[in-house]
């Protein structure tokens, strides 16, 4: 069973992102002895771009932009990064409440055209209805699943056929479908997430990838349930796991750093020496995790540490296991 590694880009919860935003906002210089010529020229995107490039240089398979209402919009971030990273896959997280499904699909097709089909979608809406309403999305909890499904039917319909009509509760289109060079592009790889039975059932029918969070109770059983349901639809779904990672040559130092970041006891944390972290990842892989979606409180440092020290160890361990 193969394994792949994706890096989740830093957002507004990242210390360095916040510092760069303050710099861009022209906040007073914090370098009393330094002749500072940056003049607001840099912002957090410059940091994010370095992290993305680091993920590419350190042999990750893809990068993921989150949909954080306190931060940047993933579709723009990834568009701007697409010219700076040339190999890694680009996964945009957003909500089907964003607007027209045809319009979202059109963006996806332009992404596929410009990136050599490296583009994917991770669809999710804010679980909290009040949060959704603050984003202009008044869908009820009960309708979330139907809306997601209609969004996918329409988006897939216009991408995969040149003449497509649909008349649903949330989305409709008449004689739609992309033509000419916009036709024939692969539909974006689709990641869905969630831990509920309903979420698994939906992924079993619709998703290419289902993402769990590390810390999910009885992960192995949930993975088994997902595969069983997917099989009943004649499908397979890849299992991804979202985790935060803090590694260090010295395991004590890793744990100290995690404590400083305030996540020492977080259920989604993998921390320790390179060997410890690699062993943990290999064990999770043994439970059926095929893709790791990692992030870190110090994103740039950790993406290098993980890429340079942890991933080679994991690959060696998995190679042994396979042999």
């Amino acid at each position, binding site marked *: 069973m193969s394994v792949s590694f994706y890096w989740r880009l830093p957002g507004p919860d990242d210390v360095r992102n916040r510092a760069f935003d303050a710099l861009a*906002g022209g906040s007073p210089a914090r370098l009393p002895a330094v002749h500072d010529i940056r003049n607001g020229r840099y912002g957090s995107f410059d940091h994010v771009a370095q992290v993305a490039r680091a993920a590419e240089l350190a042999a990750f398979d893809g990068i993921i932009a989150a949909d954080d209402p306190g931060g940047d919009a993933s579709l*723009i971030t990834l*568009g701007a990064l697409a010219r700076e990273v040339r190999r890694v896959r680009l996964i945009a997280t957003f909500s089907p409440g964003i607007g027209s499904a045809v319009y979202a699909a059109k963006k996806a097709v332009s992404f596929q055209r410009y990136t050599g089909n490296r583009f994917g979608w991770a669809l999710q809406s804010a679980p909290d209805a009040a949060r959704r309403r603050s984003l202009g999305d008044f869908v009820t909890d009960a309708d979330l699943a139907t809306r997601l499904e209609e969004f996918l039917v329409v988006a897939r319909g216009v991408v995969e056929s040149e003449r497509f009509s649909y008349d649903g509760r949330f989305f409709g289109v008449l004689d739609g479908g992309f033509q000419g060079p916009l036709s024939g592009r692969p539909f974006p790889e689709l990641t869905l997430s969630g831990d509920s039975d309903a979420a698994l059932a939906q992924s079993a029918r619709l998703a290419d990838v289902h993402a769990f969070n590390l810390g999910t109770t009885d992960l192995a059983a949930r993975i088994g349930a997902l595969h069983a349901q997917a099989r009943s639809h004649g499908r397979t779904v890849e299992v991804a796991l979202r985790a935060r990672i803090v590694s260090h040559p010295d395991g004590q130092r890793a744990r100290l750093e995690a404590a400083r970041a305030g996540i020492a006891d977080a259920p989604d944390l993998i921390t320790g020496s390179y060997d410890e972290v690699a062993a943990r990842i290999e064990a999770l892989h043994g439970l059926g995790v095929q893709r790791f979606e990692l992030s870190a409180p110090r994103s740039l440092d950790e993406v290098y540490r993980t890429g340079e020290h942890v991933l080679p160890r994991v690959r060696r361990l998995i190679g042994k296991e396979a042999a």
Partner: protein
Amino acid sequence: MAIDFFWRLPTHGDITTVRDPHSTRGDWSPLRDGNQAPGLLHGEPDGTSYVDHLAQIAKAAEISGFQGGLIPSFPMTDDPWVIAAHLARETKTFRFMLAFQPGFVNPVEAARLSATLQRVSGNRMLFNIITGGGGPAQLWWGDSFAHDDRYGRTTEFLDIFKGVWKGSAPLSYDGRFYKVENGLLPPSLAATDLPEIYFSGSSDAALASASKHADFYLSWLEPFDQVAEKFARVKERTAALGRRIKCAIRVDIIARPTEEEAWADVKAGFESLGPERRDAFRQSGGDSVGVSRQAGYRPADARRYEDLIIAPNLWAGFSLLRGGPAIGIVGSYEQAAQKLDELIALGADGFILAGTPHLEEAYRIGEEVLPLVRGRGQAERAGLRAVG
């Protein structure tokens, strides 16, 4: 006051010469002699794509004096948001004018996308707000609202878009088309500049919305007396709301060292079409007032290119040579500049220019025509008057 000049990014291929509209750059036509289809080298994928050509045009435009460019959006084009995001870090000063129909993204999400683009580009995005031409194309997009409802939706969209961006408190809004409860951009996004708003649409419903929200009212070129009348109407309606609005014109130019050369290129283009001339602009079953104002010239019925000369240096056959409106400017560099000065004298504060092919013509117009434009005040002192 200085005039705002923009160029245009062609979003579904770029014809390489007005003399032969069948030769294009881009993968909208097959690779053959005279065509360049990015993405293929000797028929094999080479890692480039059409956005590499657009990057070339954007750089040419910013280098040669244009503020930026309009990025049109139609069913067969690539998407303007994706284009702008891809080019944001490869350009220095180019401002991205996204053609956008407000119905297609909910306003809070659109504000998040826009503010992120402002952050990535250093405040270089702006809008051409369009509201769609109705008919089958509107349904293709999945939008079944009627003409005036679409403009009502555009107005609500802009109310919310501005409210969640620059409001001092979270916005709650309960409209016919959109609702929001306690919406506000996070500080890092809200700190960016609200995009300038160019606004297109010729109907009464369009003017009602534009007068409330637009910074620039944008029109295709029409006969000059009609332009003057249109600008006056827009300004009057906006003034009635206690606001001010500027006006801009979107027009194609064929400018050559001499007028003879310019018309010779028009003639060659017209005659290359053969008897199967088709007006690419006439839409079936749409409801656009602006489109029907342009379609009145029936360029497809003309027998000779001269039949379409509606005034000195104005030709109404551009929609035969490429998708887009009918009327454009043809002439020597001096004549082209003089036409622009006449429009400035009529109240134009900005232009979106285009020429075929977009890359080389960005340099040509920037180098040969823009320096000859005298601009406000000077044009008036020189006694330039608009003639129909």
